[in-house]
């Protein structure tokens, strides 16, 4: 399998604080990868580096075999889509308009969105159950609805690489599962690469093919879920004790934790 991302010897910090120290990481194309780690371990920074939003102070980020610096802004936005945690919804755009903004990199400056653009936006609205809210103002949405709008926009962008920062943190269970199912479909059917920063280890276990465990700005362990999500790794990274077992009903590994041994 080809690599979607190859990160080599990445160093990054800001305001005099080192966040990422000598990190090496490969992310496989067409797989779902979850990045997990405690607060301040550099998860979101890593995602920013992969989105090209920040530049590493040293080291290189290769996206689909090319240094990310050699991508033009437009080309990059047609290759990777990022669903950030921010909800910058100050102005009353409608849900539909916000989702249609996902087509921004594909629509020439002075053109109206094409039929195809609208079709992609409609499909994304439908997947995230937003069709009934399409003409609602984004300023009037609940947190979960906003998050669904951001995810729908990311889906409408139709990129081979998708980066997600806590994509389901405010969603109800059903919509979270729907979103995760859609990302799995994209990975399986279209060989899209999906990378998500997640807090919840159970969510990561249900979502991902591979897990990257981050600790203090470096990779502690990476690989298939079964190999990385072990009590030893979890204790080393999060400082909690856990029990990992296979859950037949949910059809994925399930983790339960406690503070004391």
């Amino acid at each position: 399998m080809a690599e979607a991302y190859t990160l080599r010897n990445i160093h990054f910090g800001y305001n005099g604080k080192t966040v990422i120290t000598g990190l090496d990481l490969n992310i496989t194309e067409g797989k779902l990868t979850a990045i997990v780690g405690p607060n301040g371990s550099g998860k979101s920074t890593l995602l920013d580096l992969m989105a090209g939003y920040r530049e590493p102070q040293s080291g290189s980020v290769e996206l689909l075999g090319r240094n990310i610096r050699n991508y033009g802004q437009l080309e990059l936005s047609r290759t990777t889509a990022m669903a950030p945690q921010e909800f910058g919804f100050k102005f009353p755009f409608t849900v539909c308009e916000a989702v249609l903004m996902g087509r921004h990199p594909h629509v020439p400056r002075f053109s109206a969105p094409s039929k195809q653009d609208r079709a992609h936006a409609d499909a994304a609205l439908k997947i995230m159950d937003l069709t009934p809210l399409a003409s609602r103002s984004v300023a009037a949405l609940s947190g979960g609805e906003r998050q669904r709008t951001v995810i729908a926009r990311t889906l409408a962008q139709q990129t081979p690489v998708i980066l997600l920062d806590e994509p389901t943190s405010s969603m109800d269970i059903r919509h979270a599962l729907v979103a995760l199912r859609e990302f799995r479909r994209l990975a399986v059917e279209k060989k899209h690469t999906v990378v998500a920063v997640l807090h919840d280890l159970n969510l990561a276990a249900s979502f991902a093919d591979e897990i990257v465990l981050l600790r203090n700005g470096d990779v502690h362990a990476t690989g298939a879920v079964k190999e990385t999500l072990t009590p030893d790794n979890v204790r080393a990274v999060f400082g909690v004790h856990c029990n990992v077992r296979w859950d037949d009903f949910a059809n994925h590994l399930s983790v339960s934790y406690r503070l004391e041994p």
Partner: protein
Amino acid sequence: MYETAPRSPVRTGFWIPLLAGVLFCLTVAATGMGFIAIPSENVLRVMAHKLWGADVSGLDPLFINVIVDVRLPRILTSAAVGFGLAVSGAVFQGILLNPLADPFTLGVSSGAAFGASLALLLGLTFATPYSVCLFAFAGGLLTLLAVMAIAGKDASLSPTSLILSGVIVSAILSAGISFIKYMADERVSVIIFWLMGSFASKTWGDVFFTVAASLAGFAVCLYFARDLNVMSMGDRSARSLGVDTGRVRLILLAAATLVSAVCVSVSGIIGFVGLMVPHLMRFVTGPDNRLLIPASGLCGAILLLAADTLTRAVLPQEVPIGVLTALIGGPVFCVIFRRKQMGGERG
């Protein structure tokens, strides 16, 4: 399909020609109003005469004089300033992600006022009639540079640090203005009068200056209007959608500041237009900057022209235009705002 076309282009698009039509009619009507009333028909004939040399035989030459040399420069300047202030207000609100921002939030007005006060204090008006204007313009520009230097520590010029440094610089400049007023002794009335804004005795030079600046700034803002829409979703989202947020913000900031600095330097400080008009227009056209910016410009032109005509031709005595816009605009804005609050959120 319904899902992707909730705001029909017919509903929103027709506002632009409608506003343009109203502006034209108002310009003609306003030109006819004044100490010497001139029928609209004659106003149109003189305009046609000036534009493509239409026949004006049988028309009182005094009319032509009054229209061309006295009224039109003032009317066109006020419309251009209204246009410029409203466009730059819409853009400032978009860049700063704050519906309560206006062209003066970053201290451009304080800078211009400081420059003008300085020119008036030093009595530089005898050198050239444009010295106050030049000083005001330079003051506005220097203020922007100062604000950006303070805010620009993070290269992408975040809205929060821009607003904060704008507030700081404004506060310092306000103190400077107070000091100048204190120093000015009997000249203080000239400074105060200038600060309150006026379109009296404008020339064709002012017209060309303001029209050129407003239209050039408008063109730049319209070019980036779509990026501004995407930027309202937040910086990370916009970057992910291919918008170079730092660059776009810098260009729009420079364009909007230049326009407002030109407006202030020509007419003094006229508040409320840049805040209220984009706000109002957002109710009718929606938040899409590609419509909002032109609609705001036209509405701003209409509003300021109407206000200036009111003080020039209707009221028994001229009221400073800046005072008038705030006096009328404030309460109207309050009513609209309250109604919107009571009516709840609307798309």
